[in-house]
Each structure stands twice: as C-alpha cells, then as structure tokens.
C-alpha cells in the first residue's frame, strides 16, 4: 500500500525531468513564503496578545522601504518562474523535425490511433522508446484533451481543426492516457494505455498488426467507422445523396453547374464538403479533415468505386 503513495508520476519523457525541476523550484519558493507568513502571523499573534482591557498599542509608521521590498522581490521571483516556464513551453510546442507522425482521433469516449504504416488500435498507443513521436489530433464531436501524465504532455483535441502534441519516451512500460477536457457522460471512461517498447519490439508488433486486406474492405470499414453510412444510404436520403453508381456520373451542383464524379471530386467532397454541394442538399456534412489518412482516403475511394463498378457489386449497408 505504502509503495504506491507517490508524490510524482513517472518521469517517462525527455521533458518530464525539466518540468519536475521547475515544479520543485516553485515548491521551494512557496514553502519559504508560507513558512514566513505562517511563522510571522503566529509569532505576532502570540507575542503581542492583549495584556490589559484598554491597552493601546504604539503607532507603527508605514515603511516605504519594506513596501518596495515586498513588491520587487516577489515580482523578480515570479518573472524567473515565468521565463523558465515559457522557455520549456516553447520546446513543448514545436515537435522536432522528422518526428514519427501518428494520427489520433478522439471521439465520444474512445481514442483511435493510426500508425503511419497502417497499424490501427483503439484506446492503446504502442510507441518506440527514444524516438520523438508527433501525435496529430482530430476530434469527431466535442473537445477532448490528449493527456499522458507520465510524459507531462497535454493538448486539447478541438473539432474542426488539427492540433498536435509531441513527446519522446525515455522509459519503457505502460502509462496512463486520460481525456482531460470534460466531454460528456463517459468522460472518465475515455482512458487508455500508452505502451512504450524497444524499437525492435515495436516493429515486430507493427508487422503483425498491418492487415493485408484489400483497400475496398478497409474502405468499407472506414465508411462504417466514420459514420458515413448514417447519411449516405442505398438510395437518395434527406441528409445525403446515395453513392451507388456515383463514380463516373455527372453530378448537378447547388451552384447550377455540374461536374464528373471522379476521384478528386470524392476526395474534395470528403475533406472540404462545402466546396461542391450536390443539388438540393444542405451543407451539413462535417469535415473529415485529418481523420482519414492518405491511406484511408485511398481505401474510401476504392470502396466507392466498388459501389458503382461491376467488380464486387457489394451492397452498401
């Protein structure tokens, strides 16, 4: 029981040690001032307790030197902690060039990670030790926050835009992953594990993850996972046009002109839905910017092609 009574989380990233040192500096400064104030208050309260009922204490003049002292000294101390914190913050803000990029998607109450080589995992993040990792964060619904206490890293995952955080793990093992920004009922359930492994173990883990499945199968799974199916059904519905037989067809647009539905049209409609809106539909399709890696987009386009081409003719759900 006692060995679990800790004051600090693991220092498992390059910056964790520096953050803790700054933390200790601030604790030292604060303990000094708390001791000073508590000590003086208790000492004065005891020493100058009232001796007789109508005792009138001698007047004490306001001392300007003292006032200046306890304005300038605290100011200098706080500015030191500002500068130290700011310098560290700037290094936290910019990922080193060549950092390995992992796509992360936060959605109500789970984390989804896609490794560059196509490996995919939910609520778990396997990373190699000693290599800077940049996490590209996108949200599908509300604001979440990617927080790994052991790495001292936190960055909000804001819907509608990309945010990123980076870290370089220095210690192998499993660490907590939390969502730090309140995001609804299961906010406290949106947690996971970051597993730090040796680079060689990481490669072995990655190789048996990558599924050799055809792109269209991956595309169909993405189609479900991203919730495209909720709007794009087998026939033209109120919220979205059907994608059956779409590929290669000329599409009438809201602005009057028309365009042939080729790969670039599908890709643009997925990433920037408002650029070309099909006739008679509302601009309610949310952006999927950053939630589909290039590989995912390829899989998606392959899937949509399969819906209209003679090949598998598989029915969309």
């Amino acid at each position: 029981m006692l060995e679990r009574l800790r004051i600090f989380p693991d220092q498992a990233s390059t910056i964790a040690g520096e953050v803790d040192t700054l933390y200790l500096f601030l604790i030292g400064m604060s303990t000094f001032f708390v001791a000073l104030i508590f000590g003086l208050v208790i000492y004065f309260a005891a020493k100058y307790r009232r001796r007789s009922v109508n005792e009138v204490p001698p007047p004490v003049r306001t001392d300007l030197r003292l006032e200046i002292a306890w304005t300038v000294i605290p100011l200098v101390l706080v500015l030191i902690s500002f500068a130290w914190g700011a310098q560290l913050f700037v290094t936290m803000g910019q990922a080193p060039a060549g950092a390995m990029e992992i796509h992360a998607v936060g959605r109500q109450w789970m984390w989804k990670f896609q490794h560059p080589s196509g490996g995919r995992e939910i609520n778990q993040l396997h990373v190699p030790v000693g290599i800077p990792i940049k996490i590209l964060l996108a949200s599908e619904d509300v604001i979440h926050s990617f927080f790994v206490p052991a790495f001292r890293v936190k960055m909000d995952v804001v819907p509608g835009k990309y945010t990123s955080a980076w870290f370089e793990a220095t210690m192998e093992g499993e660490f907590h992953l939390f969502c730090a920004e309140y995001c609804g009922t299961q906010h406290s359930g949106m947690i996971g594990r970051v597993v730090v492994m040796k680079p060689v173990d990481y490669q072995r883990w990655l190789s048996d993850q990558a599924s050799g499945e055809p792109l269209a199968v991956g595309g169909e799974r993405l189609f479900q996972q991203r919730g495209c199916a909720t709007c794009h059904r087998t026939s033209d519905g109120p919220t979205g046009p059907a994608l059956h037989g779409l590929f290669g067809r000329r599409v009438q647009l809201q602005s009057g002109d028309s365009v042939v539905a080729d790969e670039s049209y599908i890709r643009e409609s997925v990433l920037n839905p408002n650029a070309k809106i099909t006739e008679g539909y509302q601009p309610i399709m949310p952006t999927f910017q950053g939630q589909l890696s290039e590989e995912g987009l390829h899989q998606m386009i392959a899937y949509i092609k399969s819906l209209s081409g003679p090949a598998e003719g598989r029915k969309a759900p």
Partner: protein
Amino acid sequence: MSPVVEPIIAPENLPPRVNYLNAGYGIRSWLLTKDHKRIALLYLASITFFFFIGGAAAVLFRLELLTPQSDLLQAETYNKLFTIHGLIMVFFFLIPSIPAVLGNFLVPMMIGARDLAFPRINLLSWYIFIIGGMFTLTAIILGGVDTGWTFYTPYSTTYANTYVIITAAGVFITGFSSILTGLNFIVTIHKMRAPGMTWMRLPLFIWAQYATSLINLLGTPVLAISIFLIAIERAFRLGIFDPALGGDPVLFQHLFWFYSHPAVYIMILPAMGVISEVITCFSRKRIFGYSFIAVSSLAIAVLGFFVWGHHMFVSSQSIYAGLIFSFLSMFVAIPSAVKVFNWTATLYKGSIIYQTPLLYALGFIGLFTIGGLTGIFVATLAIDVHVHDTYFIIAHFHYIMVGGALMGYLGGLHFWWPKITGRLYPEGWARLSALIIFVGFNLTFFPQFILGYLGMPRRYAAYPDEFQVLNVMSSAGASILGIGYLIPMIYFIWSMRYGPLAGPNPWNAKGLEWTTPSPPTTENFEHKPHITEEAYAYEVKEEKVVG
C-alpha cells in the same frame, strides 16, 4: 486560552425602541422594502439557501469518490452534481455573498449615507437574483444539466441533452443582479460620502467593494452575451461556436474567461476588504500601508482583465498569446502578495485578542497565501500544461475561494453580526467551528494538490486505483468541513433569539457603522456624521461612542 476577555456588554446598551428590524412587520414590509439593511438580510437568507444546495451536491460526489469505480452514482448523475456544485457555488453564493450581504448592509453606513444611491434598483437586483435562481432550480428539478459550470461548446450547444437553455437563462438573469449591485455601489461611493470622508479616509472594505463593483460592471455583461449566444445557438441550431456548422469553440472560451477570471477577483476582493477591517479591530492598530492596500485592490481589478488566457494554454490558443497571458498573470499576483505582507505587518506590535473574526482572518491569510502561490504554479506555462484540468487546479481555486472568500465571509458575518442583529453569537462555539472548518478544509484540499500533480483529471466519476488513498483523505476532510459549516448556521439562528445584547460597539471598533445603535434605525444616523480622522485611528484615546 485568551488572556483577557472583553467585559460582556452592560445591559443599558439596549437597542433603540424602533430599529430597522421592527420598523415594519409582515411579508410586504420585507418583500417590498427599499432599506439597504433589509435587502441585505433578504440576500443573506437566499444565499445561505443556495450554499447548502451546492454543499449537498459536493458531499454527494465526495462520497462517490471514496471508491475508484463509480458505484454510488452513475456517471451521468456525477456529471450533473459537479455542474450543480459549480454553478450554484459560483453564481449563487460566492459572487453575491460579501457584496450583496455585508456590502449592502455596510456600504451606506461606513460612508455616512442614509441609503444606497438607487434603493429601488437594489430591491430589483434581489428580485432578479431570485428569478435567476428559480430558473436554475427548475433546471435542476427537471433533471439537471451536465455541462460543467463552464458550458464549453460544442458539448453544451450540440451534444448535451440536458436542460442547458433553462440553466443558461438562470445564469444570464442572475448576472444582471450583480451588475445592478455593482452600479449601485459605485455611484453611492462616488456621490454620497459624508462630509470629510475623503477617498483616503474610506475604510478599506469600501475600497474593496468599489474595485469589485468595477469588475462586476465591466465583466459580467460579456458573460451574459456568451451565455445568451449559447442559448440561441442551442435553440436554433446556429453555428456560432459549433465547428460542425463552421463556428469556433475556442472563441467561446475567450468570451467566457474574459469574465470568469475577473469573476474570481469579484469573489476574493470583498473578503480582502473584510480582513483589513477585522485585523485592525482585533489588533487595535492602524492598518500598515493603507494606501498600498487600497491601490492594490484597484490594481487587482484592472490587471484581472488582462490575464484570462491562462485558462487556455492547452486549448489550441497560439503560443504567443500563451506567453503574453502567462507574463501578465505574474503581475496580477503581486498586489495580492503586497496585501498579505501588509496585513501581517499590521499584527506587529498590536494588541491582539483571539475573537472568532480574527481566527477567520488569520486562517484567511494562511490559506490565501497557499492559494495565491499555487496560482503562480498554474500561471507558469510548463507546469500548467501538465496540471491543467487536473485536481491541482481544483485545489488551487478552492484554497482561494473556500480558504479565502468563504473564510472572509464567515469572519465578516461574525464581526458585524452584533451590528446586524443587536445580539452576540456564542464565542465558544464560534471558535470551535472555526477550528473545525480550518482542519476540515486542509484535509479536503491539500491531498488534491498531490492528486493533481500525479495526473488525476478533474470531473472524473471513476479513477485509477492508485489515486484512492488521497481521495479517501479528501472525502474525510469534506465531511469534517460539512459539519464545520453547519454549526454556525445553528448558533446564528439561536443568537437571534437568545444571544446577549450587543450594544452599539461590542468590539470597540473604529468605523462609522459602529457609531450607530445595534441594530441601527432605518435612517442609520440621526444627523449627518462629520469625519475628521483617518480610518482605523485606534491609537487615538477612547472617545465618546456617539458620533
């Protein structure tokens, strides 16, 4: 324990036959009163009611947090409870507490006026407060709201399916109550001071109320508009803050924190005003550095508006904005430090007796120092990246709000209770409850600093096992704190009936309010007082009590 006990008040100090309490009887005389003292009591009753609702929510989820998994409450209920705790405590207790109760009662009396500048608006502000309260209570009774008191979008506008609009209406309406009170105080302090009461002779409680009213005036409208925009966005599916419809959620955070950081100074500044009054009275000494404390109240009010971005360091705000806000946040800490040093210096060579108001004041100085210093931690960028949205932040702002504002409020209530009711509270029980509150408070919130740095996020119904020990300590402290708050409620009510008569000046305190009988007459002063001496002139030989 205390060496010399003040003589109990001689019986002949009876309250005047007709005073503001018995000037009229029946519901109409209270609900339609324009007397600032009666409106203060109306506020006292209403915020005490809200305090116990917020407190009950806290006790419930502290019980839940005894165990790592969410077994006592479902996650949904836990979310609603912490939202109720936040909303009620911030908007319906802390912000109105000292200004609306002690401020309403004392501002006219301390500056020698018959009443506030706009008595009708003062009553209107109480009604607005109650209407806002009714809206929020309706939302709670219908099923509660689970967006947190911060209403972050797009959760609050699109994804929450609880009573957000009714709660938003409640908060929107109540905001105007503190705007009107602030406006009333500013005009009164400027225009209705008695002859001779120059700015530098004002009690520091008045300086604090003035600074608080400035924040109320310049900050609350922005909260009103951001809450209004959330309500219309949710009602008409607009996209102002909803990224799916083209809006930007970070913009809501800017508008919300533009008010909500100065709001924490609305909560602490009045308490600072009370501390200046209490320290000088019970150490029977002139305040050390009067002008420095007065000016730092204004400095806090002004600088408080330049720092709101430190709530958004990790919210995808730009790095440069983060640097600017962190830099400015360091400056806003300095006036608070100056005040603490000046109060401590006031005790030097004083003649101190340990009456309850002073116990609360000394408790305030200690706990507010810890709260203020941890504020430096969270204003430092690198530390905030780690501790933002964790229990470190919860501990920091509870040390300021509960350790500071609430201790100040209780100290003030005890200090002016004889003047408000003409009766003395039981000193023994009061000191005991002050001690219980101090112990219970520290046991509740100090472990949360450690929890926070260990990385336990806030607003979690369930948490990993290794955080359980500290959470159990915190919950234990919370129950002690709960008991500590019940005791004053009981003996205050008891003292209204059975408390010994207080007489005009039981503490031999300086200040115009103590030159009137207790409880004072409706007109406060028979003839307009004329002020000739500085504030807290305790060194001057005891003069006749009648002003």
